[in-house]
């Protein structure tokens, strides 16, 4: 059994690396056509992401929301219910956490942070609960409702930070700052890397354990793969779908809380520019595998930080970097297909085996 798994994983990794390689190759060709040296370009990309302590820290800081939203996607998608509403849940969670942070300044730090995280998880989870119920009880497509609820949440928090909770010192587009003591400790000077990366690691380990090692993870998976079967065999499929949505929403909410406590120290009206969508993409690419989500998040964070310094270092316009980046994503996404083609080739060429 182990052999099969290793073989499958190897196949997956090979085709993944092949597709990344192919994408980089196409990117290189585009660079050449634009009169740039691809070796210099990619060198700058890697150096931009890992070239110094600060840069490594910056890259890793970016993985936090990606991992959390990626895991959030994984738990919902594997359970056969599609939470596309992570963005909205993140916004609401971030706001709730910020609210705790600027309202209960006198609480002990430990209590306040726990309270903030719980509030963000609760709000995010609740906001995912509604589309979950609409899906399970009324069979209303959760893809639409969660997309719609994203806009609603973003508008609603936008109202909050511009009217009742606007920062007291004028032009901000955010709430007041959370109490100084609550801010997560920074780990590397200048960078945004903070202790939330440890909490994220804990959450990732917990989610890995839940998904891969427990009977509950097994139930989620079975509900996702055939919910009629799950029901027939004694797993309450509807309950598990809703649970998946709640966990998913809670993780997105926590991602929001970490952005507030670790990065911005207040809620900002545009606190996330599509983290949840990036996380979704990541989870899809690695097929909801928690370990894969962590690794792919690092890769995505590398692309983001690296390409950012690439423009300064090489003069390759950022638009071109954007094109290359999207080609890389397209090719990683096509990984499965390339693998199938290779397999078919092998089968047709190869000899008959029993």
């Amino acid at each position, binding site marked *: *059994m182990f052999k*099969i*798994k290793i073989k499958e994983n190897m196949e997956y990794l090979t085709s993944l690396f092949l597709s990344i390689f192919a994408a980089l190759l196409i990117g290189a060709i585009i660079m050449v056509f634009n009169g740039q040296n691809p070796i210099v370009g990619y060198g700058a990309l890697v150096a931009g992401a890992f070239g110094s302590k600060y840069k490594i820290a910056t890259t890793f800081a970016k993985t936090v929301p990606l991992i959390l939203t990626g895991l959030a996607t994984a738990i919902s998608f594997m359970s056969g219910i599609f939470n596309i509403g992570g963005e909205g849940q993140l916004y609401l969670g971030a706001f709730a956490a910020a609210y705790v942070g600027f309202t209960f300044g006198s609480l002990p730090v430990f209590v306040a942070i726990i309270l903030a995280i719980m509030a963000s998880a609760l709000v995010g989870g609740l906001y995912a609960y509604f589309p979950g119920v609409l899906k399970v009880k009324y069979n209303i497509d959760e893809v639409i409702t969660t997309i719609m609820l994203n806009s609603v949440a973003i508008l609603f928090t936008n109202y909050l930070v511009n009217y009742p909770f606007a920062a007291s010192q004028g032009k901000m587009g955010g709430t007041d700052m959370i109490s100084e003591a609550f801010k997560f400790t920074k780990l590397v000077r200048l960078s945004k890397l903070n202790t939330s990366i440890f909490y994220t690691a804990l959450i990732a380990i917990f989610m890995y354990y839940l998904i891969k*090692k*427990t*009977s*509950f993870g*097994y*139930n989620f*998976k*079975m509900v996702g*793969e*055939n919910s*009629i*079967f*799950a*029901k*027939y*065999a*004694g*797993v*309450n499929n509807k309950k598990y779908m809703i649970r998946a949505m709640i966990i998913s929403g809670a993780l997105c909410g926590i991602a929001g809380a970490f952005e507030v406590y670790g990065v911005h120290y207040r809620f900002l009206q545009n606190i996330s520019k599509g983290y949840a969508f990036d996380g979704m993409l990541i989870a899809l690419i690695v097929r909801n595998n928690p370990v894969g989500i962590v690794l792919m998040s690092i890769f995505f964070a590398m692309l983001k930080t690296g390409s950012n310094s690439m423009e300064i270092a090489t003069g390759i316009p950022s638009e071109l970097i954007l094109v290359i980046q999207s080609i890389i994503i397209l090719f990683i996404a096509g990984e499965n297909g390339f693998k199938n083609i290779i*397999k078919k080739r092998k*089968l*047709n060429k*190869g000899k*008959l*085996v*029993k």
Partner: protein
Amino acid sequence: MAERIIELKNVSKQFPGVLANDDISLHINKGEIYAIVGENGAGKSTLMKTMYGLHAPTSGEVYIKGEKMEHFSPGEAIKRGVGMVHQHFMLVPSFTIAENIVLGCEPKNNTLFVDNKKSVEIVKDLSKTYGLEVNPNMKIEDVSVGIQQRVEILKTLYKGADILILDEPTAVLTPQETEELFKVIKKLVNELDKTVIIITHKLNEVLAISDRVGVMRQGKLEGVVNTTDVNERILAEMMVGREVLLGDIKRPETDGERLIEVKDLVSKDNRGFDSLNKISINVAAGEILGIAGIEGNGQSELIEAIAGMRKIESGKVIINNRESTTLNPKEIRDLGVAHIPEDRLVTGLSKESSITDNILMGKQHSNEFSKNGIHLKREKITDYAKNLIRKFDVRTASEEVKVGSLSGGNMQKVVIAREFSFDTKVLLISQPTRGVDIGAIEFIHDQIIKKRNEGCAILLVSAELDEIFRLSDRIITLYEGEITGEFKNGEISKNEIGYYMTGNRKELE
């Protein structure tokens, strides 16, 4: 010598990990009925799909009407008069019967638009010509499998097929429907000069209809014989490689307490029509109650209602002396019920999951397989799965294989392995051997009897009268959601029971 209408030369087909067809050479003569038999997973369907252009053979040659076919598609096979009715129906559920029949070459007006009126007329004409009655305007999703079968045949005939490949056409048919189908086949061959290739697991059918039989085993063509030269026993032995005994069953008298009690049960079918009308039955420990009925008369709904998979409108169900009327499937299972569902693909299995995960289902929270009901003991689970695979003779390369890639019979064995290994007193069994080969049938029947003799109360629904008669202690006939008769085994013959299955009520005193 007869014309060789189809010929295969050294055909092999490799799937990842499976050599489904291994160096097969055979020919089909014009105007004959050629049967193919073999165990589940022997490669029968694969071979047929190769003839039809759905699979390209990995090596070997295919000739249709003397013409060598290379890299051909079903379209080209159809052009040369080959038609195939697949094991799993190839019909679009939301389309009407007429739309399904003409799909792919629709009659048109103005060269642009589909002429629906004409389609309907064509179907009516076809129906008449071949004696296959259908209502062209009904949607496929609303008609019985028997009708769907007819639609499939009409579809091939509409396309002008003179070579018909029928892959297990009788698996889902009632005996009456099978009889009608055979009449049609004979008419097609004798009067209309068609050639028929038929796959079936029922050896009596082979003897009844075919001229020659090809026997497959583990991807190889074991042999080809003239039907007149063999009997069921010889065929079974050729298929399985050993003697198969579907002999008499020892059933020691067990007189137990009532474990299943159903009182005045009323329930609806999927479309919201009444399907069970005040049904009352009971089953005692150590007893098999067989339910005979033509499909669609409420048998499926009865089992589902008891299992908690269907809402009970009124009435009562008592299992193990506890009322279960409003409980959900999980709570009913907790009362000690195992359930083999009628449709293994939809209800009984998760195709995308491994055999292990399918077998674990229902035991994932047990102390045996998880610490505190939470942490899965994977090694133990794997051993357990391996053990069941061995015990229930599931043919597979590994317990990590996805269930969806097993052959139908082996999938069924996985369901049975799981459900029979619960320590339950009550078994609900629906169509346990549908599409299963004779070797496996023998095995499954043995398991059911073993459960009975251990003191289980078993409710059995099957479209196979043979099966009902062979296994049941008592038989009930259902017609349109009502009980029309109740008999002790031996009280009534197979021929007589059809009378009750079609609605003639036995006067109950």
